[in-house]
């Protein structure tokens, strides 16, 4: 298979999968089979590109010339390669998990669910491999629209409100700000191609760089930079597999991935650093990082807590981009992969707990760890990875981010990163502690009969538990194989 074919296949496999899923909707087992086969084929197609990209190749494929000089065009570079690998790989795990979750909770409209999921993945692949800002924008919008039916899946008034927030912020920011930024870039640079070193050098200067950066950063609403973060907690109304793969991996990572792409390939890190306009972004990112962590502390609903944790962790990536240094960019990009693996584990666990016990509030989860040791064990591993402790993947991204901050002498940012890690400990570990160490609540009166028998293991369905153990194991693997991630990413910051 030629690399160009593999690129196009990566977008078309999920599309074809969506069609097949829709056709096979009447036979659930066949339908889920199609989903898993599609996910596996997609992963293989994506993986077949890795060696080429590792060897320094930048395979390309053009779809169609949409506007004069602005084709829909794909080019695989390391950052996109990593993102595509993460998203497609985790889709396999998530597909298995979805079977357990959706059936375990008797969710309605499952065919629509799987179809939209496949479409969302096709959009994600388009974003990952986009060769110019136009292509990226096209798939960025497609991702918003294909995930809308997933967010409003339940069809309740609450879901409808959440859908409004979701669409309003994401579509509003991208059309209102990002499109303007893209058109402006096209106007002054005459190109939208992602080019090493950026395309804006000498085209714009002074405070206007800051204005353009502002348009981009807030135009990319999916990066959930405060105050445009409200859509992410709102999206938690969706079934947990959606929160897990889309709102911890594909959609939000598409946001910060776009941030990285814009900073590295549109502005160019040297240009951005020399302009001095990255400073405000640094502070916004740091503020988002801390405030979101603090809000997370106050949330008793597990998914809401995880959502705010995601907002905070996304800000790490933006922080890395805003540092505009070699280590900052490497650290931020690594964070995309590391956080994805950790956070999907946590969401899987939240969903497994819900499937097994129908509990959503952390305060109700006392003692559950003993009933669900695998789930809570995985939760612990995921948490430690998010916090950034070795031997888990998350430690590397934090390490490089701190290096980046040190490199530019941003002592304040080092302090912020450290403080944030402490906050992570404060909002994640109590969940595990409560599960394992506090005795199960034993209300003396009514609930007693309903309390589970001691000692027995009452886990969620196997389809739920196996994927979450796999991703937890992935967090460990990422620690030991971070070297290859590093070597993959290194060329993007090479002068």
């Amino acid at each position: 298979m030629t690399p160009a074919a593999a690129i196009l296949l990566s977008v078309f496999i999920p599309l074809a999968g969506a069609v097949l899923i829709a056709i096979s909707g009447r036979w659930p087992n066949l339908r889920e089979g199609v989903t898993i086969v599609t996910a596996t084929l997609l992963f293989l197609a994506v993986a077949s590109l890795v060696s080429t990209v590792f060897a320094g190749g930048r395979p390309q494929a053009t779809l169609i010339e949409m506007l004069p000089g602005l084709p829909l065009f794909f080019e695989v570079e390391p950052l996109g390669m990593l993102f595509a690998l993460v998203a497609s790989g985790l889709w396999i795990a998530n597909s298995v998990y979805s079977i357990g979750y959706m059936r375990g909770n008797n969710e309605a409209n499952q065919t629509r669910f799987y179809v939209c999921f496949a479409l969302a993945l096709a959009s994600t692949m388009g974003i990952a491999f986009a060769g110019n800002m136009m292509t990226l924008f096209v798939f960025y919008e497609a991702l918003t629209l294909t995930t809308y039916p997933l967010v409003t899946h339940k069809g309740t008034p609450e879901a409808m409100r959440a859908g409004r927030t979701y669409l309003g912020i994401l579509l509003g920011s991208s059309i209102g700000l990002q499109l303007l930024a893209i058109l402006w870039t096209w106007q002054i640079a005459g190109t939208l191609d992602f080019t090493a070193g950026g395309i804006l050098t000498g085209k714009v200067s002074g405070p206007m760089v800051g204005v353009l950066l502002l348009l981009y950063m807030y135009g990319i609403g999916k990066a959930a930079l405060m105050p445009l973060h409200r859509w992410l907690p709102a999206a938690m109304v969706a079934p947990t597999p959606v929160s897990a793969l889309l709102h911890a991996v594909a959609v939000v990572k598409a946001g910060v991935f776009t941030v990285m792409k814009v900073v590295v390939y549109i502005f160019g890190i040297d240009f951005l650093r020399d302009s001095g306009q990255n400073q405000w972004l640094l502070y916004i990112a740091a503020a988002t990082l801390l405030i979101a962590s603090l809000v997370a502390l106050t949330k008793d609903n597990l998914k809401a807590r995880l959502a705010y944790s995601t907002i905070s962790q996304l800000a790490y990536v933006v922080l890395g981009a805003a540092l505009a240094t070699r280590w900052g960019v490497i650290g931020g990009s690594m964070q995309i992969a590391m956080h994805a693996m950790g956070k999907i584990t946590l969401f899987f666990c939240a969903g497994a707990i819900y499937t097994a016990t129908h509990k959503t509030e952390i305060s109700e989860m006392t003692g559950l760890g003993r009933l669900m040791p695998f789930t809570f064990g995985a939760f612990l591993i995921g948490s430690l990875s998010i916090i950034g402790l070795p031997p888990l993947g998350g430690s590397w991204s934090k390490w490089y981010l701190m290096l980046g901050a040190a490199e530019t002498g941003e002592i304040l940012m080092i302090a912020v990163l450290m403080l944030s890690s402490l906050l992570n400990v404060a909002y994640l570990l109590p969940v595990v502690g409560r599960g394992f160490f506090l005795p199960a609540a034993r209300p003396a009166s009514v609930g007693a009969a309903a309390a589970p028998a001691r000692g027995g293991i009452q886990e969620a369905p196997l389809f739920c538990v196996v994927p979450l153990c796999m991703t937890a194991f992935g967090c460990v693997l990422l620690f030991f194989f971070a070297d290859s991630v590093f070597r993959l990413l290194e060329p993007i910051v090479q002068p």
Partner: protein
Amino acid sequence: MIAAHLPALQIVVPLLAAPLCLLLRRGALAWGLALVVSWATLAMSAMLLSQVLQDGVISYALGDWAAPWGIEYRVDSVNAFVLLIVAAVGAVILPYARRSVAHEIPAEQHSAFYTAFLLCLTGLLGVAITGDAFNLFVFLEISSLSSYVLIALGRDRRALTAAFQYLVMGTIGATFIVIGIGLLYMVTGTLNMADLALRLPPLGPNRTVLVAFAFLTVGASLKLALFPLHIWLPNAYTYAPSAVTGFLAATATKVAVYILLRFFFTVFGFSFYIGALTLQNLLIPLAVLAVLVCSTVAIFQDNIKRMLAYSSLAQIGYMILGIGMATPTGLTAGIVHLFNHAMMKGGLFLALGCVALRVGSVRLESMQGLGRTMPWTMFAFVLGGLSLIGVPLTAGFISKWYLVQAALEQDSWMLAILVLVGSLLSIIYVWRVVEVAYLRPAPPGAAAVREAPLSMLIPTWVLIGASIYFGIDTSLTVGVARQAAIMLMGGTP
């Protein structure tokens, strides 16, 4: 031989077919004839466009009376494009009309309906093709009078007042146009547009010409429903039969925009337009107001047909905005949007027609749960709505792209932002419908609703499909529009 007479046939065929429809009496036969004729006109307009793109301007002397005295049909890339739009929409809507008209109009009036429809088509095509200013007025009246009839055929009794209102406003507009043309004839002694274009510049600053210009501008603005001369349009669109609304929304206002373009750029000439009155200062604020005010009003409409009518007014604002900027990119944006909007709004109104057929009402509350019961219709509506918003890979995105680009070229940041704000407002009004159709269950006790028949779904999807296709492959639309814009700006394409 035949090919040489294409410009005449383009008009004569539907014009002669119209009374035949009336003679046929039987509705089905009349429909069949109208259908064949509409497809023939589409074929002819497609041939004309390809001829123009290949060989340049076609000049056809009607009855062999030479140009400044006889009536000249003059086809260049601008009006060949408009001809194609009108003919294509007509050809798509007629197959649709059969079921829709059978449902909404009493059987004994069917042959009259198709007669009026063909006359309206003739008039619109005639306005586009003619190179003679007075002939343009005649065709404008043909199309207007027949469209009053078409609107008055609406089932709702309010259709009559709507048609009357349109009659009054439209007649004022047409009168203003004919006064303008008369004044021009007074100073130049010619009615041929190309001839006028030659004779006007040497006159220099001339009060009569200025007055003519003012009359023509106001007249055309009335016909194209430029804010604040738009009051007739929402009622007319709301109460007209579904097929008529789709047809008029996609063609009538577009042809009026074409009249404006033709007089501003060909007859008066680009330099007159810029120099004498700085019409930019008049058109752009009105266009911006149209976009903002009408989009906002659309948000509060519970009758979805009326909502789309207000949305049309906003979209007309975009076209005028592009034209008003008077730069090649701005004009390109205006002309591209002319085409794109015809496709998407036509498709949207047809989708609503399907709802009207099956549900009997197009009010927001009666659309609850339709996402399930009429999946194809509602999905077409969603796609059309996305195109209206200007989501990438839809035609609407291409229009917005050029419009914002045109604004940025002139460093008018405010305009660029306003265009995008308009898009954001359209998200709100489109999504109101989406939420009701998909996220609210059908009310208990509501009659079972079936999907619309194929004869209506296919035309709807043809237009909606076109509004997606021309968002992906823009070589035809942008190519022709750019060529037309350069030609109108006085350059050689």
